[in-house]
């Protein structure tokens, strides 16, 4: 490590002002601070120093995502095996099947997203921000496994430019970049983002006889029956155990509630995510699901799913833990966080149950509340000011 540092320090002057490659300063700086913690500190004014810089924050979130990511890869292989009826394979065979299926997507997301970030930082003479480290892994995880790479590249480019860079880059975006990518894909290429063809990777093999490729929520939305029976890809009904651990088709990162809970534990123990948003989000979703379940009607078959299963199905758990808690796009005030989380939970279930066009509502709910987060903060701050003004007037 010392030798590497010496070598890098040797070429450093060429990237400083006046050096040969001074135009590439921000690229060099990005890699330099990625490898070594910078020892420069601010010299003027009062600053709070914390070892938890944005690089460490991002890496912690990526760590929290790892359980979901690894499980998702295995699940792709498992669903493939179930769908083709070719079940006798080892754990590692299934895992690597999924790994190779999603690797191109992960690489595409990172190359396109980071490429744009590097170019923009270079053009503006900014330092390179780390924001895309998390988005790059989140984006493939919330898309169906069969999403073509070129679509992903178009969507990533769109969302990084129009949701993030035009507003000033990392930390200034008001919409969650990963969700904008998914929303773009969802509206631009609907046939690739929903239905029963895209969530299970069949490869070149023919499907088994009893094969159904729809996600449980998709099956419910189009079933028209009043009984909540959801089947796996092999046609056998799913138990709550299957749903909780995530043995069903879906966008590959978000099926396992169990792995999401591990990620949640990492995020909460390191203080990265706001427990206020998550708690109120789960309460909001549970109450909404309970309400919908009590007034269940055959017109909206999803309402027949019981509340606890609702929480574990689809992308809700993933969205509330990893998307809603994004500190840049969420509310900043404490009261605001409760309102924000509660509305995300309630809206996600509301859309899921009553808009039969969208089998899952978590994406739309989070994006909508992203737009309202500044307004909520504004109202909370102003009501606080008014309350304190009243107190001051009363005393004088």
């Amino acid at each position, binding site marked *: 490590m010392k030798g590497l540092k010496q070598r890098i320090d040797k070429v450093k002057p060429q990237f400083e002002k006046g050096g040969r490659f001074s135009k590439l300063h921000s690229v060099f700086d990005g890699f330099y601070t990625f490898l070594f913690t910078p020892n420069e500190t601010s010299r003027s004014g009062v600053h709070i120093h914390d070892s938890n810089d944005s690089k460490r924050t991002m890496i912690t979130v990526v760590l929290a995502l790892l359980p979901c990511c690894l499980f998702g890869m295995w699940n792709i292989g498992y669903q493939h095996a179930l769908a083709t009826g070719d079940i006798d394979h080892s754990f590692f065979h299934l895992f690597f099947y999924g790994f190779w299926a999603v690797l191109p997507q992960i690489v595409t997301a990172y190359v396109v997203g980071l490429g744009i970030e590097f170019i923009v930082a270079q053009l503006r003479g900014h330092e390179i921000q780390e924001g895309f480290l998390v988005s790059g892994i989140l984006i493939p995880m919330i898309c169906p496994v069969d999403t073509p790479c070129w679509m992903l590249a178009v969507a990533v480019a769109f969302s990084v430019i*129009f949701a993030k860079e035009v507003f000033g880059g990392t930390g200034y975006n008001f919409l969650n970049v990963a969700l904008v990518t998914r929303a*773009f894909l969802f509206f631009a290429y609907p046939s690739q983002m929903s239905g029963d063809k895209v969530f299970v990777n069949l490869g070149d093999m023919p499907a088994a006889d009893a094969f159904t490729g729809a996600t449980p929520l998709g099956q419910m939305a189009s079933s028209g029956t009043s009984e909540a029976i959801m089947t796996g890809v092999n046609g056998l009904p799913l138990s709550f155990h299957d749903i909780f651990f995530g043995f069903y088709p879906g966008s590959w990162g978000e099926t396992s509630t169990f792995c999401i809970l591990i990620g949640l534990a990492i995020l909460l123990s390191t203080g990265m995510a706001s427990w206020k948003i998550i708690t109120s989000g789960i309460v909001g979703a549970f109450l909404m699901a309970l309400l919908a379940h009590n007034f269940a009607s055959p017109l909206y078959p999803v309402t027949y799913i019981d509340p606890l299963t609702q929480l574990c199905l689809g992308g809700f758990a993933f969205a509330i833990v990893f998307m809603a808690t994004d500190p840049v796009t969420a509310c900043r005030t404490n009261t605001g966080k409760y309102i924000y989380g509660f509305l995300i939970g309630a809206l996600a279930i509301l859309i899921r149950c009553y808009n039969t066009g969208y089998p899952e509502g978590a994406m739309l709910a989070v994006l909508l509340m992203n737009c309202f987060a500044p307004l909520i903060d504004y109202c909370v701050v102003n009501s606080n000011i008014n309350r304190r003004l009243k107190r001051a007037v009363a005393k004088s």
Partner: protein
Amino acid sequence: MNISKDLQALINPLSKDNPVIVQVLGICSALAVTAKLEPALVMTISVTAVLAFANVIISLLRNTIPTSIRIIVQLVVVAALVVIVDQVLKAWNYEVSKALSVFIGLIITNCIIMGRLEAFAMTNRPWPAFLDGIGNGLGYGIILVIVAFFRELLGSGTLFGCQVIPQWWYDHGYQNNGMMILPPMALITVACIIWVHRSRNKDLQE
């Protein structure tokens, strides 16, 4: 600059003083009629015709219109011209007329037309007013056609209804971008044009 004032009235609205991307007027119809090139082009011609003749008529009448009722007079002139355009379109190109539906009628409320009548025709002679009308109509039309070009090409794979994206692209997994057909992408396309335009004309940057 030694271009005559008349010529400036014609040329300025094309870029430096463009009604859509500089004055940000007429955005509503720019979003509504630009999903395909053909209606966008017809809309351009209609607006240009209405604007040019309304400018001339108002300019001729400008000394006889009492100030207190000038808006009503302008509206009557514009409405009459729009009805003529609407009828002509129905007679000659019924399909496009149906595709444009209410938006031909809504030319009456297009801010560009009222804006030019108020700002230019009320204080200028008929010939410059005519040129100003043509210039603004075309300035509006350029943006419409550019937006419609990208929206039709990327959203439907066609231009003027003819297939442009070759079939083997589709065979290799290419798909039309459904989002381009939706109104939000028209807004984003206009934003991109403004972006390019502003970065080429530094003096317009705020």
